[in-house]
Structures are given as C-alpha cells and as structure tokens.
C-alpha cells in the first residue's frame, strides 16, 4: 500500500519534471525566433548584394505588369 502510494507520487513528480523540461525546451526553441527583429537578421543568414547588384534595375515589363497597365486604362 505504502509502496504503491510512493510509486504514485514518484510517477506524478516524473510527469511534472517532464512537463518542466518540455516547457524549458520550448522556451529555448522560441527564444531565437523572438530575438529576430524585422530590422536585423542573424549573421549567418545575411547575404549582402554587391554594390553593383544592389542598384541594378529590377523592373521588367512582364505580362503581369502589362496586364496591370491595361486594366488601369478602363
């Protein structure tokens, strides 16, 4: 009886320990994401363009753009 009771307590504590560890793991996983702000990126992810690339023209008159111009004439 006594042994079973102790076993139940141990089981319950085990569950709480697992819950605590899980919470800590989840917090650790979330922390880097929360640290990412919209105005900075982790150094590993940064891939800067060269001076020539960054001022290069991006605009192209694609079918998509031509459709925009056409529908704006209505």
């Amino acid at each position, binding site marked *: 009886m006594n042994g079973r009771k102790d076993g139940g307590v141990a089981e319950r504590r085990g569950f709480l320990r697992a819950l605590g560890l899980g919470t800590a793991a989840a917090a650790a996983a979330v922390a880097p994401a929360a640290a990412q702000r*919209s105005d900075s990126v982790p150094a590993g992810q940064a891939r*800067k363009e060269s001076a020539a690339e960054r001022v290069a*023209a991006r*605009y192209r008159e694609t079918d*998509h753009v031509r459709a925009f111009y056409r529908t704006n004439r209505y």
Partner: protein
Amino acid sequence: MARMKFLCDAERCIECNACVTACKNEHQVPWGINRRRVVTLNDGRPGERSISMACMHCTDAPCAAVCPVACFYTTADHVVLHDKDLCIGCGYCFYACPFGAPQYPRVGNFGGRGKMDKCTYCAGGPQQDNSHAEYLQYGSNRLAEGKLPLCAEMCSTKALLAGDGEIIATIYRERVQQRGYGSGAWGWRTAYKEVPQV
C-alpha cells in the same frame, strides 16, 4: 530606363485603406509602422479628397541628403532604398522627409527608435533578392519577381497607380481627358499656383 513612380488619382480614392492593409500584410510590417497611409482632406465637407501616401522615391531624396551614415541608395529604376545594417536610427530622415515616410519600430528606454523602416516600392533591400534575410528586414521583393507594388495592384478603384512614370502619366492623362475637367492632381495648385490646362 524606366523611372518607378506612384501616382494617386484623388478622384478615384475612396479611403478604403486596403492599400495600407495589403502593404502591412505583404511585408509583415512591425507594429506601430504604416509604410503607406491614406490622408483625407476636408473630411465630411464638400470637396473631400483622399490620397494614398507613402515614400515618393524622390529624385533628389532629402532623406538621403541628411543621412549621416549614408545608408540610402537609389537603384537604376529610381527606387530609393536603405540599408538597415547601416542605419543608426538617428531620425534625421524622418525630419527631412516632407511626406512622413520614414518610420521607427520602437520607442523604448532612452528614446531608442530602432532601425528606420519605409516603403521599399516592393523592391526589398540590399540583401539578396527574395532571400529570407531580405524578407525579414525589408519585406517581399515583388519588383524582382516581375510584379509591381501590391498596394497599387490590388487597389479596387484603380486610384493608386504604380510603375514606369511615363506609362502611368499617360494613363492618368487619358483619365483626365475622359472626365473632361481639370487634372485634379493632388498638390498641383500648391506647387504651381494655377489650374492646369490639359
């Protein structure tokens, strides 16, 4: 070379703010920042006009002129962009811009503003095109995808025009001729002190 411009037809804008919402959603713009805003003059009175405003990508951009760290640059398409890794959040560009385009994400302890954020003409920034880093810092890069800014593309009344300045000016001129009355270009009389003859 095409010169990218925005042009808002004040006769058509119905102040629905869909351009504002679309911009915020497309670029996951941080809390407290609106890269685009709808301004209404004479609200509720005869002659009420609304106009959608964002960075005008000035030819001689005052924000770039006052920046102490030279974080601004102009692309070959005449889009004014900035490098958030260089920005020190001093706020000079905010004071210099006549349109209130530069915004700051935070007002924290000791007045920390964070890095400046503004309309990128959906052209991203100095990170590689359509990379995750570019999206995190500047939002999506629709221009590199062969598209135009989302605010203009989804405008329900076609009030907001974007694209090659020559083409959208022609579209606007056709509209004015069809209407049969003055250009209605917002700010025209302020700038030129006369009614334009079209």
